[in-house]
């Protein structure tokens, strides 16, 4: 573990330009600065549309920031996600930077157990071990065993979300981005996810999260971060 921040966001700005809508520009934030240390969970606060998800996606490399840097501690050095080559970003995502989105987006017709194993297989974990760990996690998340061999397309929202969570917690990502991972879960399942998050934090993960559920937020947040303070002038 390192005492350096695992995420450093420096002077980040994001403006969307919609070329097919008369080049409308939508400024979201500017000069945004944020650091997250190991064991810390920073919760993004602010109302809808303030740019929480945009910030998170910019950190993940999914959105291309207009300016600034996003440095992620990977393999003993910082990688600037905004400047890195695609293969470097993918390598950082494969081993360091995890992301739990609100929605499950996977290849249709692949069984759930296999989907959950995938992040381990990509990291060279043997098939049997990957299968056992996936089974263990799906049990912990109380996904009925009868579902494991089925593709998740027909699952309920809460079940799909648990598959998504399993995919992200099966590896111990040092840096984890959580975009409303508990949005469609019931109280018991939320508690399980809170436990998973706390365990990962205790082991030194750095996290940035968006939680609309105040109980979950209060349970896991080290501090709140108001995105609106960096609101870009329109």
């Amino acid at each position, binding site marked *: 573990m390192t005492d350096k921040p695992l995420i450093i966001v420096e002077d980040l700005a994001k403006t*969307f*330009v*919609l*070329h*097919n809508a008369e080049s409308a520009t939508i400024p979201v934030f500017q000069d945004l600065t944020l650091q997250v240390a190991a064991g810390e969970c920073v919760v993004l606060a602010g109302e809808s549309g303030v740019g929480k998800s945009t910030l998170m*996606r910019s950190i993940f*490399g*999914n*959105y*291309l920031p207009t300016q600034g840097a996003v440095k992620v501690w*990977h*393999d*003993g*050095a910082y*990688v*600037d996600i905004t*400047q*890195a*080559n*695609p*293969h*470097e*970003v*993918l390598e950082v995502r494969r081993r360091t930077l995890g992301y739990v989105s609100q929605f499950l987006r996977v*290849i*249709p*017709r*692949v069984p759930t157990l296999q989907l959950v194993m995938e992040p381990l*297989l*990509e990291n060279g974990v043997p098939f049997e071990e990957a299968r056992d760990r996936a089974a263990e996690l799906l049990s912990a998340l109380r996904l009925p065993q009868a579902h494991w061999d089925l593709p998740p397309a027909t699952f309920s929202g809460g079940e799909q979300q648990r598959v998504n969570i399993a995919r992200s917690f099966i590896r111990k990502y040092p840096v984890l981005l959580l975009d409303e991972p508990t949005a469609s879960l019931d109280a018991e399942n939320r508690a399980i996810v809170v436990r998973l998050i706390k365990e990962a934090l205790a082991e030194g993960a750095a996290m940035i999260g968006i939680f609309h559920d105040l109980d979950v937020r209060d349970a896991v947040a080290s501090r709140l971060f108001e995105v609106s303070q960096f609101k870009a002038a329109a």
Partner: protein
Amino acid sequence: MNAIPGRIAPAPLLSVEGLTKWYGHVLGCRDVAFDLRPGEVLGIVGESGSGKTTLLNCISGKLTPTSGEVRFDTRRFGLTDIYGLSEPDRRRMQREEWGFVHQNPRDGLRMRVSGGANVAEPLMNLGARHYGEMRQSTIDWLDRVELDTRRIDDKPRNFSGGMQQRIQVARNLIHGPRLVFMDEPTGGLDVSVQARLLDLLRELVRDLGLAVIIVTHDMAVARLMADRLMVMKGGEVVETGLTDQVLDDPQHPYTQLLVSSVLQI
């Protein structure tokens, strides 16, 4: 280039520079340049007539470009311009080190010989003579692409479109290529067959560490298969980048139009 300190970036497997193809006065593709690394999957997307297939054919040695270079890290000659090789050397390199999966299995298979013979042929072309070993290897590959191995002696026409495509995939991977070209590999298939084939292709690419250049007009296929994308319009590359970034936060007007035009179901 933002190299990660303390690690040496491996040499590119393929390096394309200034690649241009004119058909008389008509532009096929202009000034295309990129590097491909071992194990990397590059998607080329764009509408019909944007130059995707011209580019793929130029890169894969099927169509001599008007100008520019396609350098490949060949086993025998190292990193070398494939159009600088003699015809026999280039053909041998293509047979030994490349695969090409066509959209239409009929373009990639020999319809008069059995499915098994189609799969085994690349081994034979590379000098394999032990019949038993070739047959075993063929059975292994038919199994790997999830085909009934008891049908090894059936002719391709007796297989469904999806199965023919699996035979073509096996035929193009059996000899252990390092680079595989795919031209709309799921283009002619039912969506039901498409998803399973894509999953299979993805597994094989991951397990074999293959580098792939895949041409598709289907953004969903691009998202599932490719690590990064090149977006083409009017023969030129208008945008490149990490696949999900190009699709979720496209920068170029044409890419924005392309992505926003995808129908949702």
